[in-house]
């Protein structure tokens, strides 16, 4: 029986290969993701370890509570006097202090800040280049002296920076012009792709970063014979408040925390798309197996006649699936390696170069990728395999015997419907139930979505006839006889058409979901800006979302014609003990932002003073707060202040620039040493004009990271960030659409094979090859359109459910995108038909009739 199964596969090479492709892509995505993220992980581990070489312990500032990573809010600095105290300790051999910032921008020859993708711009002090703590090596020139800068080799090469040249540097204050003293690289030769590195001597760095007399870190090396824990204990004894010490191992871990979070996120994100592709692939497998089994009815019945038991038939089909699964997963595994290489190159092309110390191929990658591929294949083969056991032996002697319907065939429609409804219920529970943690929510939503897709896919065989009737109408008009036959062919085996279309349905449902959410976000955001923003200009970072030093807004305020400046600062704090974002405003904001106050006076913003605050209505409700109640704010430096709530506002559906709690900029700046603005809004004489724009641009010349935009420019820019995320999602979802394309090809090839006689007959009674090709093409397009129709409706329904839940989103129908998706589906249909149509047209009418 084993031989029978294997030989069977070999005798059906083409369809086996087409079927296997469906799994190959998903597995490749999974293995590629692991290889990619493991490789990045390894490279960063090397970098972080290298940076701390020579240190035994590291002292750093510590905020009063855990800050969220990547928000731009940094740990507080501490007094540099601590360095001398440390050097006096008995266990300390050597110690050096440093300051750093990940927003130290270099200005290129074109006058613009040098930024590659979203990579950071790292600036740091090199107190003593000869010390053991320096992880860098000179490539060229000298280490930096006062008012000098040293830059990394990669950036120097990309920007044509040369030793001796003077370039602009901007950290906290306006742009400074510094001479390049030299070019450096990590001693290990590694590069943090995309990031720019700028080193200064300590006083220059402290001045640039506005950290005079302060330090961010002290690196400590121990005397021989002193262990790291002993060293840490000795240091701990003299540490002032607001600082902490960690052994070097622990320090490397906390250095890597943010990166690791990013890598984990990237991994989960990409794996999800691999999972989707596999899920779609499982439909393709199930479908092609079903068709193959239907075509092998006589063969299977003969086996039963010769004494094979149902179990043996089941076993032989499962064995086939197992072999396909193993081979496809192995191919996918290695294709994943190539994919990882390709992704490195792709990230490189979009400017977000990832560090690379060679591809990492872990055992876990092999195990997970193979298991996923094999299990999905086996799972998908179960139903067809069970169907195969129902082939009665008598089918071996009866012409045209068909499979008897299963015991539950009549209940299938109801079961599928129940499954879809249950899926929606699970999804709704995940979305709407209170008090679930994120993982639970995701599990419910994932499970729900899976059930919805399965249920709809199973039920859709009932929708095929009416849908094919409607969607096939253009074919009958355009394709004549071929078109009419195509429509009838699409309808004659609804189950087959439905499961072929289902694979495409899933991909299209997901892209429609994404498009509808995006459309909702954009519409909500636009209307919210239009509701709130009464000024003429907005100043943001070049990337539209990073908080920027307040000097930029102060410089802009000096531009001729500026009448009002309203700044919105952002930072992290404990609000009544709960960590989160707070915002701060200056009085001018009153005139550029029009909030909808549910409680408190209309001019709350301008009358906050030193101890006033306003909150949004959601927070007020959750915290049982009203005007007159108080909120305690704890800042990162550890000090707490009580603010009185003076107003409560109702944010528009698209959100507001304000956090849950907002205080005055004056009160904020008193506690936050380096305050940053998220937005600055301006009013100018004459409104938004070319002259005013030029005046602002001139005023901001020293702040290359800041840009002034009119209201429309502001909206467009904020949205453009979203569209690059959208494009990534579309590309990743395209993978599952490619898988479904293979599914359609596969079904058509099998169908053509099955209808050999019929096609021969059509040819014999005068159909041309062209007409045959057209017939197959139309059938393919009708199938694709059925998938598109169900998928688009489902995607919109899922999006509507999510949008209903999220307060700051309104529903907006993505008309343009839906039109594009429909055209894409037609294109998929046409593309999928190319090969099968050619095969059908090539059939020799005589041989086709004589077949068998």
């Amino acid at each position, binding site marked *: *029986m084993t*031989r*029978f199964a294997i*030989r*069977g596969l*070999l*005798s059906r090479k083409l369809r086996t290969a087409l079927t296997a492709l469906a799994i190959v892509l998903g597995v490749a995505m999974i293995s590629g993701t692991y290889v990619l993220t493991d490789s990045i992980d390894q490279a960063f581990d090397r970098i972080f370890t290298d940076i701390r070489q020579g240190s035994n312990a590291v002292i750093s500032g510590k905020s009063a509570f855990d800050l969220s990573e990547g928000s731009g809010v940094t740990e507080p600095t501490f007094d540099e006097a601590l360095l001398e105290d440390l050097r006096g300790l008995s266990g300390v051999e050597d110690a050096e202090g440093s300051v750093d910032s990940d927003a130290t921008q270099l200005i290129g020859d074109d006058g613009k800040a040098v930024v590659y993708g979203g990579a950071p711009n790292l600036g740091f002090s090199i107190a003593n280049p000869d010390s053991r703590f320096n992880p860098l090596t000179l490539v060229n020139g000298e280490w930096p002296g006062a008012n000098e800068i040293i830059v990394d080799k990669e950036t120097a090469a990309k920007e044509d920076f040369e030793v001796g040249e003077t370039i602009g540097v901007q950290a906290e204050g306006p742009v400074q012009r510094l001479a390049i003293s030299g070019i450096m690289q990590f001693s290990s030769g590694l590069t943090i792709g995309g990031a720019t590195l700028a080193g200064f001597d300590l006083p220059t760095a402290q001045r640039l970063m506005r950290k005079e007399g302060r330090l961010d870190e002290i690196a400590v090396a121990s005397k021989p014979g002193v262990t790291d824990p002993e060293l840490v204990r000795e240091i701990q004894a003299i540490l002032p408040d607001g600082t902490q010490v960690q052994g070097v191992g622990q320090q490397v871990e906390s250095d890597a925390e943010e990166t690791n979070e990013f890598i984990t996120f990237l991994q989960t994100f990409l794996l999800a798309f691999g999972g989707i592709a596999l899920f779609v692939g499982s439909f393709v497998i199930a479908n092609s197996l079903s068709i193959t089994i239907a075509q092998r009815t*006589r*063969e299977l019945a*003969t*086996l*039963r*006649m*010769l*004494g*094979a*038991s*149902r179990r*043996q038939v089941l076993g032989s089909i499962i064995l086939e699936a197992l072999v396909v699964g193993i081979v496809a997963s192995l191919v996918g595994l290695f294709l994943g390696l190539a994919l990882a290489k390709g992704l490195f190159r792709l990230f490189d092309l979009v400017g977000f170069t990832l560090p690379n110390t060679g591809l990492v191929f872990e055992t876990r990658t092999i195990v997970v990728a193979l298991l996923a591929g094999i299990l999905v294949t086996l799972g998908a083969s179960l139903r067809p395999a069970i169907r195969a056991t129902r082939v*009665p*032996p*008598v089918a*071996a*002697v009866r012409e045209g015997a068909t499979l008897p319907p299963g015991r539950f065939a009549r209940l299938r429609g109801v079961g599928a419907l129940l499954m879809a409804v249950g899926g929606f219920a699970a999804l709704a529970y995940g979305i709407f139930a209170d008090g679930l943690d994120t993982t639970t929510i995701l599990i419910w939503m994932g499970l729900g979505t899976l059930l919805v897709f399965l249920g709809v896919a199973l039920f859709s065989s009932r929708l095929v006839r009416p849908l094919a009737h409607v969607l096939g109408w253009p074919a009958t008009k355009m394709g004549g006889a071929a078109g009419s036959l195509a429509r009838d062919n699409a309808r004659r085996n609804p189950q087959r058409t439905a499961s072929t279309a289902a694979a495409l349905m899933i991909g299209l449902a997901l892209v429609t979901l994404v498009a509808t959410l995006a459309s909702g976000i954009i519409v909500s955001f636009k209307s919210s800006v239009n509701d709130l923003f009464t000024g003429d200009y907005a100043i943001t970072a070049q990337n539209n979302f990073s908080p920027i030093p307040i000097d930029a807004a102060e410089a802009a305020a000096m531009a001729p014609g500026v009448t009002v400046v309203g700044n919105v600062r952002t930072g992290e704090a404990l609000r009544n003990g709960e960590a989160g974002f707070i915002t701060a405003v200056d009085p001018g904001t009153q005139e550029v932002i029009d909030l909808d106050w549910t409680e408190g006076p209309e001019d709350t913003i301008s009358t906050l003073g030193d101890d006033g605050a306003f909150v949004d209505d959601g927070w007020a409700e959750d915290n049982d707060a009203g005007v007159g109640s108080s909120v305690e704010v704890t800042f990162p430096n550890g000090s707490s202040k009580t603010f009185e709530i003076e107003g409560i506002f109702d944010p528009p559906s698209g959100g507001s620039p304000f956090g849950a709690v907002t205080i005055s900029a004056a009160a904020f700046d008193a506690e936050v040493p380096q305050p940053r603005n998220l937005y600055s809004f301006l009013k100018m004489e004459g409104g938004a004009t070319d002259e005013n724009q030029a005046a602002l641009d001139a005023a901001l010349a020293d702040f290359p990271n800041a840009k002034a935009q009119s209201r429309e420019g502001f909206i467009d820019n904020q949205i453009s960030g979203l569209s690059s995320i959208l494009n990534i999602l579309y590309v990743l979802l395209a993978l599952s659409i490619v898988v479904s394309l293979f599914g359609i090809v596969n079904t058509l090839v099998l169908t053509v094979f099955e209808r050999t006689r019929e096609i021969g007959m059509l040819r014999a009674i005068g159909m041309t090859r062209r007409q045959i090709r057209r017939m197959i093409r139309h059938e393919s397009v009708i199938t694709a359109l059925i998938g598109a129709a169900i998928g688009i409706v489902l995607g919109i329904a899922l999006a509507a459910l999510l949008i209903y839940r999220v307060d700051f989103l309104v529903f907006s129908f993505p008309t343009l995108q839906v039109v594009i998706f429909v055209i894409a589906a037609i294109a998929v249909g046409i593309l999928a038909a190319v090969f099968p149509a050619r095969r059908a047209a090539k059939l020799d009418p005589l041989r086709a009739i004589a077949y*068998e």
Partner: protein
Amino acid sequence: MNGNGDGPVVVAADVARRYGQGETAVDALRGVSVEIERARLTAVMGPSGSGKSTLMHILAGLDKPTSGTVAVAGTEITTLGDNELTKLRRRHIGFVFQFFNLLPMLNARENITLPLTISGEKPEDGWVDKIVGDVGLSDRLSHRPSELSGGQQQRVAIARALVSKPTVLFADEPTGNLDSTTGNEILELLRRSVDDYGQTMVMVTHDARAAAMAHRVLFLADGQIVRELGECNAHRILEVLEEIAA
């Protein structure tokens, strides 16, 4: 060596088979009783729609009668479940098809030994070689069905049916898909296996020449056995057929 004792190998009593229900019901068999004798070739003849195929399906356990009983090698088979029927097919029933039904991906030898492979049995020493020699396929064993002529394919199928020494071998129009010369060779081969190995065989056919090879010919019409002949020639058989039709 086939079955137990000396009595008939297959006994059908008052077998009726009705397809469908109500107005559109069709009675394919209306009370057929028949005994198939050991080591004899029994031919079943009749015009299309006479019920001869249905009778064979029921005797072979492929279909169940609406009423009546069928015993194969002493076992009542109309009440058996799928697993027992599978075992029955392995031990007692061989089949030769009109369209050969060879598995295209297996070569001739693999096709012949397939029933043994399926039941997990080892062939008796020399048995496979003897059959292969007797059906004249010794030099074709490594060929796939697509590389064999129709006659050769049917020889493979006959060898496959003989290999497990079934209690009874059913042949369903074994010459229906062959030219007359090749058909005659196949018929002689079938008759030889009855004479040489003592193989019990039931052959359904509408070909009078085929029926003329049998020890006994049963004539079916309208779902009933209407005549029975012993060994006779094709001419006599044609006469009887015409009498039945009239």
